[in-house]
C-alpha cells in the first residue's frame, strides 16, 4: 500500500487493509464502513483495530471508506481521534487523518485506489 495523501491510498489486488484508531481524551466512539458495509472492530483491541478488508476491485477503480466518530459533551475540546492504516503487501503503518472535537464535521472519507 502506498500513501498518496493521509486519506487516499494506492492498493493492490487482494491486499488486506487494516484501520486502527487511537483516541485521546475520549473513548472509542467510532465506526468504519467500506463500500456500504460495516467493518467490525476487534473486541478489546487497543488501539482500536478494525478487521482487515480485502481489495477486490479491478484496476482503475476505488474502494470507498468512511470513518464516523462521536465526541460526548463531556469530552474536552482537545479530544481527538487519529487514524492509522496498514496494507498487507508492504508500505508502512501510515498516519491517516485526524478528527478533532472542534471540527465542524466528525467524519472522514478514505479512498483505496487500484492503479
Amino acid at each position: 500500500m502506498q500513501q498518496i495523501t493521509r486519506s487516499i491510498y494506492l492498493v493492490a489486488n487482494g491486499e488486506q487493509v487494516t484501520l486502527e484508531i487511537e483516541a485521546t481524551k475520549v473513548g472509542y466512539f467510532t465506526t468504519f464502513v467500506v463500500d456500504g458495509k460495516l467493518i467490525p472492530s476487534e473486541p478489546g483491541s487497543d488501539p482500536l483495530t478494525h478487521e482487515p478488508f480485502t481489495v477486490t476491485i479491478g484496476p482503475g477503480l476505488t474502494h470507498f471508506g468512511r470513518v464516523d466518530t462521536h465526541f460526548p459533551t463531556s469530552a474536552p475540546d482537545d479530544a481527538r481521534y487519529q487514524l492509522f492504516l496498514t496494507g498487507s503487501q508492504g508500505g508502512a503503518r501510515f498516519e491517516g487523518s485526524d478528527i478533532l472535537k472542534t471540527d465542524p464535521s466528525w467524519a472522514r472519507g478514505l479512498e483505496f485506489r487500484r492503479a
Partner: protein
Amino acid sequence: MSKRNPLSRILGLICISALLSPGLAVAQQTAVTTKKLRDQIALMEKIDQDEGTSDEVRALNRTLLDERKSQLAARLVKELDGLKKYSQTMEGSLSEGETQKISSLLEGLQRELDGLKQGNNSIRDMAARTNVSTSAPARTTGSTASTNLAPPANEASRNTSNHALRSTSNTAPLLVAACFPDAPDELVRTAKTAAVAFVDNRDTTGLFGDLMFFTVSHTVAIDANREDLLKALEIKQLQEQTRRTDKQVGPPASAAGTTTLAEKPGFAEILGFAIEHGAIQKAVSGTTLNLSTTPYAFTTLNGGDTHSNYKKYGYLTRLGISADFNIQNQDNPLASARRSQLADWSVRLRLSKDRSTRSDDVEAIWHDISAEFARLSIVITDMLRSTFQSDVELETQRRLIVDRLIGVTAQPSLVAIRVNNALTRDQKIDQVAEKFICQAKTDIVDGVRSGSFKISEDSKDRIIRVTLPAYEQARTAKAAALKIFDERIEALSYKPIFTLAYNDVRPTSEINYSELKMLYQKKTGKPISLIANAGLSLYHKPNTVLRQQTVRDFAATLSFEGTTGRSPFMLESMDESQITYSFSGRYQRIFENRFVPGRKADIAFAQFKFNLPMFSGMAFPFSVTYANASELIKEKHVRTNFGFSFDTDKLLKALALAKLANP
C-alpha cells in the same frame, strides 16, 4: 478609444489596488457589510463612467464590478427570501403598519435586485431561481460558467425550496458562497471542515468523499425536480443541529491551557512543569493555594492521555491527592508550596466504579448503538460505490475532480490566506471554504449538468429512489442512536459515588488532627445533587490535660447542590460558568467540649449558599449560615458572607482564549 489621462489612470489603479488589498479582500469574502458592498459598487461605477478612465483600467474595473454586483445580489436574494418567509410565518400576528413596513422593505430590495440585473445574466438567473422576481427565469445557475440546458420552469423551482429552507434556518451556516448560493448545508459544513483542516495545516482530503456525495446528490435531486427529498433532509439536519446546541466550536483547548507563572527553582519548578502539563491542578482562593492531582495525570506526561493509556492506568484515577498552602507571596503563590506553609492535605479514594465516558460501561452502550450510528456512512459509501465502482471512465473523472480539489489547496492564493495575519481564523476558514465550494460547483454541479461529468441515468435514478430516502432514514437513525447514547450516559450519572477521604488538618493554633470520612454523592434530580458524608476526626497525639481522646469528633453533613444555568453576566461567549446554589445541614459532636465550660459538644449548622459568576475569573459568592454554637464558643449566631472571588487562572485562560479566537 478614450483619451488617456495619466491622473485618472493612476487614481483608477489606486482604487482597484485598494479594493484588491488583503484587508478588503477579506471583507469582500466575509466581513464586508451589505452597505460596504454598495459603497464599493458606487465607487466602481463612478470609475467606469469617468471618461478619463483608461480602457485597461475600465476592463479590470468592470470585471470586479460584476463580481461585487453578484455578491450583493446573492445577499439581496437571501434577504428577500428571509423577509418573505418571516412575513409568511408572522402573517396574522403583524399590524397593518408592520405589514406595510415589510412590504416596503421587500419592494426596495426587489427594486435594487432588478437594478443589479441590468446587463448581468448571472444575477438575472439567480433572481429567477429564487422566485423573487416577476421577470422571466433564465437557464443557468450561479455565477460560474454553466452550459446547463434544463428547462427554465424546472430550474426556477428546483433551487427555490432548498434556498428558502436555508434562509429560515437559524442554525444554517453563515457562509453563502457567491458562486453557489444554494449550496446545501451539508456541503457547506463539509467544505468548512476541510477549510478548518487546511488552516490548521491538517489533511483536507478526507472530506472530499462527502463533498462529492453531497454535491452529486443535491444536483441530481434538483435536476429531477425532487426538492421534496432535500427538504426532508434539511428538516432532519435542523433537528439534529438543534439537539446538539451544547456543541462548542472554538480553538483547541490544548492551545489555550498554558499558565504563566513566576517560577522559582526547585520544588516550585517541578510543580510548575506538572501544572503546565495538566498533571497538577492549581487553584488560588483568597490566601490559600490548592494543588491537586491524581497519579493517573503523571502517566499521561509522556504519551498523552490516550485511550490506551487510560485502559492501562485508568484505575489510578480512583486516587486523588490535594494540599492546601497558606500563601505568603500573592505575586508568586507557587512559592508557598512548601512544608512550613502546608495548611492541610488530603487523599481520596473512589470506591465506586468508573462511570466516566471512557469507562467500560459507556463503551458497552456505544457497542449497542454503533450499528445504527453507522447507517449514514453505509448510505454514503454505498452511493459512491454504486456510482463510481463499475465505470472506469467515470471513476477516472472523479479522481481528476478530487485531484483538482487537492490542487486548490496548493494554490498560492490559498496558502496566502493561511499565513495572512490580518485575517481572523473565521475569515480564513470562510474564504478557504468558499474556494472548495466554488470548485465543487464548477467541477461537479456544472459538470453533471453539462455532461462532462456524466453520471449515468441508472445512477441518478438510484440516487433519487434509494440513496436520498435511505439517507433521510439513516440520519433519523443516527440521531435516535445518539439520543439513546446520551440518555444512558445520563442514567449512569444517577448512580451513587462512594469515596473514602483522609484529611490531615494542621490548624495554626491547635494540635494537628486527621479526619477519616466516607463520602456519598448521588444526583437526585436533573439539576440537583444530593451529597452526604460522615466521618471521624482523630488526634495524632491527644493531650489528656485538655481532656482530648483519640477520637476528636464525629460529623455528618447533608447537602443539596444545584445549578440554575449559565450566568446572565457572562458576556464572554466561550465561558460557560454556571450559577450554583446549595442548601446544607451539618451535625458535629466534639467530644472534648463536653468537659469545657462555655463550649458546646453538639453543634448544628444550616447554610444557604449561591455563587454568581460575574465575569471570567470573577464571581459573587453569597452565603447565610446559622449555627447553634461554634467549636470554641457556646453561642448561637447567624452569619452572612458575600464578596467577590477571583480565579486568576481562569481569567488568564479566558484572555488566552479570546486572543486565540480574535488574533
